[in-house]
């Protein structure tokens, strides 16, 4: 619809909107290098709070827990989510399809308190020991839905005649999938893994419900510190997390040409 002139109103609303989205994060990053103990008094540049974080055993444990939960759950979610996307995009009509897609789309918007509570009650009923694996299962369940949407929208946009040609030329479905379809969706799968990892790294509510004593994730630790007030060390941790996410986003955008295909889904991923 890029027709007509861009008015001053268009440009202003865009610029203001982007400033609103980015300024708070920039301020947070700058203040993480503040030498002063008082959060809002500038005392010169320093890496003091980063040193503090790397000497904080409990925080480091929580960070390690988050990274490993993120890696394992993202991998499981990518596997399951991709399989689900294939079923939805190529399975034509089948019995229970509406239930399947409903189960996959509704967690995207389901309030986290409900998902967290219901999974906890399941784990209690199964008498599962709560900790690493319960959080990992919970995160897999949530994030595989995001992977499904990303991979499914890529599969739907593909030209199916290529697959059909491969099969007409004698490929069985599995070979046609591996040789023709998979290479075309691999970028979406990579992007899906990264999205799943980031979402897992971000979650505080579901992890609070499903984790056990002594295995807090990084967001749970950050959250309990933030409730007590602003601490410069938290600024440093947050900056490190933002840095990690930025690296992931750069990789993902190179991998999947985000800009050209993202506009197609109703959801922002």
């Amino acid at each position, binding site marked *: *619809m890029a027709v007509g002139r861009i008015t001053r109103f268009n440009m202003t609303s865009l610029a203001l909107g982007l400033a609103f989205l*980015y300024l708070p994060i920039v301020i947070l990053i700058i203040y993480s290098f503040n030498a002063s103990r008082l959060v809002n008094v500038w005392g010169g540049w320093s890496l003091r709070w980063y040193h503090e974080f790397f000497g904080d055993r409990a925080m480091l444990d929580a960070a390690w827990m988050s990274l490993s939960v993120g890696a394992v759950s993202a991998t499981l979610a990518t596997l399951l989510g991709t399989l689900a996307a294939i079923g939805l995009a190529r399975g*034509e009509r089948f019995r229970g399809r509406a239930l399947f897609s409903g189960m996959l789309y509704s967690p995207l918007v389901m309030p986290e308190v409900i998902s967290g509570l219901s999974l906890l009650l399941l784990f209690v009923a199964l008498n599962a020991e709560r900790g690493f694996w319960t959080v990992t299962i919970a995160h897999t369940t949530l994030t595989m839905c995001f992977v499904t949407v990303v991979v499914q*929208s890529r599969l739907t946009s593909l030209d199916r005649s290529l697959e059909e040609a491969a099969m007409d030329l004698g490929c069985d479905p599995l070979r046609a999938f591996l040789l023709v379809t998979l290479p075309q969706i691999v970028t979406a799968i990579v992007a899906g893994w990264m999205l799943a990892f980031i979402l897992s790294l971000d979650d505080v509510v579901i992890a609070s419900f499903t984790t056990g004593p002594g295995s807090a994730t990084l967001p749970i630790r950050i959250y309990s510190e933030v409730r007590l007030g602003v601490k410069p060390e938290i600024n440093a941790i947050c900056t490190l997390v933002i840095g990690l*996410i930025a690296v992931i986003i750069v990789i993902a955008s190179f991998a999947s040409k985000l800009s050209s295909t993202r*506009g197609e889904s109703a959801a*922002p991923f």
Partner: protein
Amino acid sequence: MSARRIFARPARLAAVAPYLWMVLFFLVPFGFVLKISLSQTAIAQPPYTPVFDVTEGRQALTAALAQLSFDNFKLLVSDDLYILSYLRSLTVAVTSTLILLLIGYPIAYGMARLPQRWQGIAMMLVIVPFWTSFLIRIYAWINILQHDGLLNQILLTLHIVSAPVVWLSTDSAMYLGIVYSYLPFMILPLYATLSRMDASVLEAASDLGASPRQAFWLVTFPLSLPGVAAGALLCFIPIVGEFVIPDLLAGSNSLMIGQTLWLEFFTNKDWPVASAAAVALLLLLVPPLVLYDRLQRRQLEGGR
């Protein structure tokens, strides 16, 4: 056509594992929520009664079934605390969604009118904050809004106020946090519909004598309504159950339903009442969820 059908069978087989996973970890847990919402609190592990034990035979099971009751739901409708937190959740969600629409629409519209090569970059710039930790973004605002934070420092230096203003623990801070966190969810579906709009309908409108303003209200806006609906649902549903933002930014004198549920569960250890609150919240969300599901399916399955 036959190649498609041959392809469909293994594709359906691929869906078996995720299907079972979602049934076990998404659908079945709701059954437990429902069951425990009908149970009583007990000082035990787990802290509710009755506990079904299939090994005890049928009689024990029927006895346990007889103990289920709607008492927790009666409590929900009779106690002001719960009714008020429901109403507050609805008010906050409706208000925030309207604000998001008012702010998000002009931004999405601006994006859709950019030259093609800039649109991808603008889209990237809107997506990046969505990918950035949401807890961190809320924390960033606490930094700015606190008593001696940047906002008060600026206002004091500019002599706009004479004493620091209390921003944290207010409804304004909460709305700010919600709008900030959910803005990408509103912008992207709006942008998706606006950018796909056929430019020739606007040309036709102006050829037929419509002013740009008339063309916007008579053509562009009505055509963008699917995007408006998608964005509004993507924001409204999770905001109703929001916990972290009101907990960190709003005052504690009136709670949203997500906070009440959290309080009953973690502080009062009343699992049955927390479950009943979850069931009631879910019932409230069924109509928007069904609508959202339909929209999402139409998006992903090619206009069907």
